[in-house]
């Protein structure tokens, strides 16, 4: 599946999209591990050093819903889903 990256995450991920093989993964956390294996420079800009939470104000959308409003990193994900990762973003 294609994971979409935005803002300065693109420079750490090498582009606006990264093709990730979800394999046996079932959750957003699983997907991130596979993503970080492909793009290790992304990890410190997305998750805490412990890897168990997103950094403050980093957002991940699954089909347009923020995963914080679903089941967080344990939100189920499948190959058909659209996943987008945003760095801290606000404006007005």
């Amino acid at each position, binding site marked *: 599946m294609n994971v979409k990256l935005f803002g*300065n995450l693109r420079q750490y991920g090498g582009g606006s999209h990264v093709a990730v093989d979800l394999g046996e993964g079932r959750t957003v956390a699983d997907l991130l591990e596979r993503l970080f294996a492909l793009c290790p420079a992304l990890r410190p800009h997305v998750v805490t050093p412990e890897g168990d939470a997103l950094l403050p*104000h980093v957002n991940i959308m699954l089909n347009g819903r923020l995963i914080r409003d679903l089941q967080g990193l344990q939100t189920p994900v499948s190959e058909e889903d659209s996943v987008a990762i945003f760095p801290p973003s*606000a*404006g007005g």
Partner: protein
Amino acid sequence: MTLGGYANRIARINLSSGTVEYGQVERDLLRKYIGGRGLGVKFVFDNGPRVDPFSPDNLLAIMIGPCTGSAVPMSGRLAIVTKSPLTGTITDSHMGGFTAARLRWAGLDGLLIKGRAWRPVYLVVENGNVTIEDATHLWGLGVRATVRALQEKYGKDRTSVMAIGPAGERLVRFAAWLNEHDRASGRGGTGAVGGSKNLKAIVIIGDRSGQPQPLPERKEAFQEAVRMGQKAIMAGALTAPNKGGLSIYGTNVLMNIINEAGSLPTRNAKESHFEHGEAISGEAFREFNLASEPVCHACPVHCKKEVEVKEGRWKARTESMEYETAWALGAQCGLGDREPLIYMLDQCNDYGLDTIEMGVTLGMAMEASEKGLTPEVINWGDAEKMSELIRKTAYREGFGDILANGAFGAATLLGDPDLALSVKGQAIPAYDPRGVQGIGLGYATSNRGACHLRGYTIASEIAGIPFATDRTVTEGKAQLLKTFQDLFGFLDSMDVCKFASFSEGAEEFSAQVRALTGFDDITPEEAMRIGERVYNLERYYNNLNGFTGEHDTLPKRFFTVPGTHNSAGMLSQLPVMLEEYYRLRGWVNGVVPEEKLIELEILEREREAVR
């Protein structure tokens, strides 16, 4: 009377008689309304709510706050408060840059302008004094040429110039004031009020030489309060210079995230996702069109993004490609091409037009054209036609004379007011209230017509500030909105940029005002109460003009036409939130009752003023 922060001097300018008087503002009034928006609203209220916006009797209040021009982070905002010719409500609209700071350094807390000059004039503000000068030679010029001419006369180094363009001169109902850095007081048609007074420009001359301004009442406490604010801004995930998304990409960092949420009103909100959103995003403008990253007074964030097209049909260089502009002239009109967007932004800046209202009006016209309601055909995304109609609107030529009434006014004249994405006559900004529920309540209850800046619930519903809420739910949104509205009522009165609130809160803001002014009882709670007072006084002003709960609503399609893409099937659930909101506000069907006015210490003196 001396008070820290303030110049303790305000100018009352009567353009009809050509006279200027100076005075102080009562301490009690400053304590209750602070400055900026709050004090401006109080002055406009006292001037009488029933005034016609284009009457010489309408008051045009150019206001700053006690923090303006100080070291308080982001303290470079200038408020223009008046009765809006677009909405008939009270309105306030704020510009950035250095104009506000120079007004403080020029030794004034505000300019209260009434009357109508018999010929075009401009004002010169210096050393606490105001003179009225002949602007006949400037009338008809764009904002840029006006600024250039006045900078040639008065110099650049110590001078700020704010001006109206041809749109303001012709009373286009959404005409703006802009300064030398293209920072606009865009919303509500304050530029048209200037035009109605034959007021072309204001030259403000001042710097920090000599005695530093503003002087804090408690120097050490003020330095500590400033340090606290600066630390929060520098460390904030959203505001950190060159790290946070706002700093790197500007406000247009929002284009992709809002589009991904299926909450970007597209083609006059017939859809809520734009297939070319990426092409007009902050990321794309930064990669292909960034010319410079200018700053405002005391701001380390530098969210302004000057953009450029170096050659060809759309050659232009202009500040600043904001999210709202990229959306209004882009997705709202079905245009996904950056180069004409830059050109049209440049047009709007020079003619003196609010880009939000202009874009929403054009999108409305495109849908009206599909229905055969317009005198000229205008297709979705037709950049050439859009550019032509922007010029015609500014000069009120042909079809432009209809469009000059804004989206609602124009749609009404075309025979289908439901085509307008407007609330109380003002166009919505760039968030779809079907996909983001709380902001819809914000649009509906805004005292100046549809607006995201009265209560920016997007901070919570999307960015997760100060805490995260689910954009799709209605529960808790009324309280969330009220909190934002009250906080911003205070912040706009300081007058500090709202983006500071991404990293600071009532605690920091109240500490800054306490130390600066010496009003030691302005606790964080009291700051919120002051903001609530401002919001209720605005509402009371509107009530006296006949606005009630009937006007606290949204364009019909947000209740009847479902969102698309990642907000597929969603509709606004406004009525549920509105009931809760009125309960929290203590309002009855959108009207502030007398007991609430008394509770907030608004009523008695203000009732006398109305009479």
